[in-house]
């Protein structure tokens, strides 16, 4: 079976995705498609299941039901080689998760060398290229602990890009950053989007969603409440729940009723 997708085939396709943790149903039947080159932002209140959704795409969480198809491969099929799929799917975590015992450059070469079996020189070249792209070409010899949070997250992006993925998953990439460091990371992500990278982004950055996303998905209570272009979902939401959420995010200090 060919793992390659044709132009029209979506890079990610979720059909009725269900995820339960014990008795708690976190995802209650999600249908979602991400086309090649598309940037999809998932927004919603905490506990709405958006991170879980993202983690089901590369099987960091095992779906309880439904189908997850990535680049034409059904990853929910028990016989699928998930490691092979993950090689083409980059992921950026909220907590960076850089490898602290490796230098910045080694962080970006270790998977190339050990997984993709790329030669040492080529791996370093690629790593250097992507580090340069995130503006850290001169920090290859540093250890993660010597970098600021924003720099660490940019290294994490370069690490994922070094595997030359054709889908990038971002799990609240700026939520652990000091406010003044958020901009640099978002700038790198915007650059990626402009170059045509397929991206699925869980975020609280409404400005980013509005400016960069092709499509915004609003989730609440484990279901997709509303989706569409940002001009609709962010600027003119139809659903009351979406309006309420956006109001809370965009006007956090405004006095509200009972449970505000």
């Amino acid at each position, binding site marked *: 079976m060919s793992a390659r997708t044709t132009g029209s085939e979506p890079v990610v396709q979720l059909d009725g995705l269900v995820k339960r943790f014990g008795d708690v149903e976190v995802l209650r039947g999600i249908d979602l498609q991400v086309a090649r080159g598309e940037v999809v932002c998932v927004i919603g209140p905490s506990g709405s299941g958006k991170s879980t959704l993202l983690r089901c795409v*590369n099987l*960091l969480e095992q779906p309880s039901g439904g189908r997850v198809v990535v680049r034409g491969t059904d990853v929910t099929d028990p016989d699928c080689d998930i*490691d*092979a799929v*993950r*090689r083409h*799917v*980059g*992921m950026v*975590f909220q*907590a960076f*998760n*850089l*490898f*602290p*015992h490796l230098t910045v450059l080694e962080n970006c070469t*270790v*998977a190339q060398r*050990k*997984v*993709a079996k790329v030669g040492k020189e080529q791996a370093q070249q690629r790593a250097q290229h992507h580090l340069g792209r995130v503006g850290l070409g001169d920090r290859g010899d540093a250890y993660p*602990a010597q970098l600021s949070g924003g720099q660490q997250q940019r290294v*994490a992006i370069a*690490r*994922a890009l070094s*595997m030359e993925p054709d889908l990038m*998953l971002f799990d609240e990439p700026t939520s652990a950053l000091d406010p003044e460091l958020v901009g640099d990371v978002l700038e790198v992500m915007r650059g990626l989007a402009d170059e045509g990278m397929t991206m699925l982004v869980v975020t609280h950055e409404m400005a980013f969603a509005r400016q960069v996303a092709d499509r915004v998905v609003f989730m609440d209570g484990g279901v997709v409440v509303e989706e569409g272009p940002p001009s609709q979902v962010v600027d003119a939401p139809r659903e009351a729940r979406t309006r309420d959420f956006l109001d809370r995010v965009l006007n956090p200090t405004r006095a509200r009723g009972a449970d505000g």
Partner: protein
Amino acid sequence: MTTQAAPRGRRGLRETLRSPRRRARLSRGVQYAVLVVALVLLVSLADLGEIRRAFFNTEVAAAQLPAVITVALVNTVIYTLLGFVLAFALGLVLALMRLSTVAPYRWIATVYIEAFRGLPALLVFIAIGTGIPLAFPGVFLDRYLAVTLALGLVGAAYIGETIRAGIQAVPRGQVEAARSLGMSQTRATVTIVIPQAFRIILPPLTNELIILTKDSSLTYVLGSTFAQQELTQFGRNALNQYQSLTPVLVAGLCYLVITVPLGFVVRRLESRTARSR
């Protein structure tokens, strides 16, 4: 507070005890006083001449050289390292078994660890040194093999638990990041988790080495020729020969020559780990 503070110098005890800072200063003063009194008593009561004759007989001490170093100290180090190598290898296997998804492996490792952690090391030495040759006539355990086995089997139980704790102390996100890059579970464990676990367990592992150094003294139950003696046996034999405690002191100092620097290393490693967090 209704009363004015009493003028300085005329403060009563009760007044002093009311302030936590003064109370702490008073307590410290009392502790120093007790220490000084104890030292004075010790020096005045002890018969220093007798002590010097028994422990610090320079002639007897000189007679221990060079064998106490070239034979006894060297053997202690050799036995310890042999035991540590086996303990470490077996401990790593036990740790991975304890963390296995295959339940019987977990059970076996748990039973092993509980058993060997609960037994006196001396009993294991007796079982291997005396028990095996008696129970299986014809089986001859080379001395080095016997020491390695006895120290290694006991040490593995402790080191296994240390390594397991270290592996579990590596944050889950590290494995997730490795897996998301396409690494298999095994590859992630070998390349990402174990190197980090070792940084975490270096201090407790060094402690295990100190404990093994001392446990190597149990080799005496195996009996030994002069060339096979380690520090404790050496000191004990010299004690009988010279009827003096000095050889015991010399042997003790030799242990400290090994263990004190190791302890220093542990503290350095611990402070380094504390800083990098």
